[in-house]
């Protein structure tokens, strides 16, 4: 007896880019979801079901954005926010990665740092904001950089430290057996196996750093995109406020995407998982 298995005719793979994109279900449905939501929002606002003063409307946000970018104040705000974010985050990387590596490597250093790491990691950092403002001043970027730094630093240090501590003993044995110097062993074994943990830290750090920028600006009200949002809401300009929010969202996406690029650069030795392959 034989069993016949019906075979499906193979669908030819479309050559042209657009046709291939249209066949990508994930992209297609994702796009449809976004468009539908924007449409409901826009129509609802025009019909009057949704109050534009509070909720804005998609086309309004675009208009407000176009108007905003023509004012010199906007570019000042953008530059201020960017500067605060970049300085705080880079400082967190410069200090966080080496300290995390060292604390992972030297047990006693980790013991010494542990109480502080736990203390600051449990502390709702926003609560420190007024104190930091007193320490570093309301005006100027210092207090905001401090908030951004505190947000990102601990997100980077803790995973980095844990990454070092999970280094596979097999590879350490290989390095020892070939008489690698302590520094070479660290470079050839510990750091490569810690990279995924560092990347995780950076990703968490970006989000926390952005939260830091927004909160600090909303609180101090000196300059920055956070101030733009605050000003707009006080004037009941929902569109303009949401334009500011959109800017922060875009920054977050850019940040996460750049980290993904860095990750791809460092992880090409890793096989694609079955999850990636689909």
């Amino acid at each position, binding site marked *: 007896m034989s069993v016949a298995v019906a075979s499906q005719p193979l669908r030819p793979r479309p050559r042209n880019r657009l046709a291939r994109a249209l066949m990508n279900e994930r992209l297609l449905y994702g796009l449809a979801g976004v468009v539908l939501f924007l449409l409901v929002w826009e129509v609802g606002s025009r019909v009057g079901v949704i109050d534009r003063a509070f909720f804005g409307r998609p086309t309004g946000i675009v208009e407000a954005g176009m108007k905003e970018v023509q004012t010199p104040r906007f570019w000042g705000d953008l530059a201020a926010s960017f500067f605060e974010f970049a300085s705080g985050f880079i400082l967190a990387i410069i200090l966080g990665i080496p300290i995390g590596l060292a604390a992972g490597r030297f047990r006693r250093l980790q013991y010494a740092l542990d109480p502080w790491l736990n203390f600051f990691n449990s502390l709702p950092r926003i609560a420190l904001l007024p104190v930091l403002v007193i320490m570093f001043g309301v005006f100027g970027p210092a207090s905001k950089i401090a908030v951004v730094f505190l947000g990102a630093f601990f997100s980077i240090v803790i995973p980095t430290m844990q990454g070092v501590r999970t280094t596979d003993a097999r590879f350490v*044995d*290989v390095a020892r*057996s070939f008489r690698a110097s302590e520094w070479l062993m660290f470079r050839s*074994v510990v750091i*490569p196996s810690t990279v995924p943990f560092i990347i995780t830290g950076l990703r968490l750090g970006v989000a926390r750093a952005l939260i830091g920028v927004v909160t600090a600006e909303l609180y101090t009200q000196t300059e920055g995109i956070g101030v733009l949002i605050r000003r707009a809401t006080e004037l009941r300009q929902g569109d303009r406020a949401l334009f500011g929010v959109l800017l922060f969202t875009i920054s977050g996406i850019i940040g996460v995407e750049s980290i993904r690029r860095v990750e791809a650069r460092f992880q090409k*030795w890793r096989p694609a998982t079955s999850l990636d392959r689909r």
Partner: protein
Amino acid sequence: MDMGLALQARDVRMEYVDQATGDRLLAIDRVDIDIAEGQFVSIVGPSGCGKSTFLKIVNGLFPATAGTIEIRQSPKGVAHAMVFQDSSLFPWYDIVDNVAYGLVCQGVPRKEAQRRAQPLIDLVSLTGFEGKFPYQLSGGMQQRANLARALTVDPEILLMDEPFAALDAQTRELMQAELLRIWNEANKTVLFITHQIDEAIYLSDRVLVMSARPGRILADITIDLRRPRKLEIKRTPEFIAYADQIWGLISTQLKPHIHDKAAHPGGEAVA
């Protein structure tokens, strides 16, 4: 050390102390081994008998509790290099950097180390795979690279810790034949650890049978089979007679005892 010897071990003893309970565990005891230059010597024994422990002591990964191990020092190259069990290649290095690693550890600049690694990559038939990462290679090819990595530092004695244990039966046979070819060309002294009796006989000039824990050398059997050996030799009566003799020795060691956790060296070494 006597002339013509590559390795001389005298009265080696290894004792572990369980950190939590303070229990002592004697892993190996009174091990004497002489290996002549250029010889291929295997150690077989029941699992947990301490054969891997002995190899790690020779490799200098930890010190023995007592006894001495002398290895002939060659003017060039190093005393010993280890071929580890499966997946000990660094996954983040490509094959050429993995093979060159031992030289880099000696302070050779990376480019020159890569250049000097090339003949060994060719020797183990991995030409063309230099730029691949370990995950892109089969288990057998990974172990070839592992072997090349150890040979690159030109060791006086090559230590092999069950290098084919994770391979499937067919690949394992092929790798055994390959190892003999490479051994013949590289002209190295080899100390090989395995739990497979036929593997030990096929490869070796001498098979040392180790007792159950505490590990001791029970017998030193010279394998008088002509070289070069083909895989078919495993089906000859002489070969089977050796296998029976060794199996007879090992089976006396396999008492039905409760396998306690301490059988594996988890505790700290008593220096």
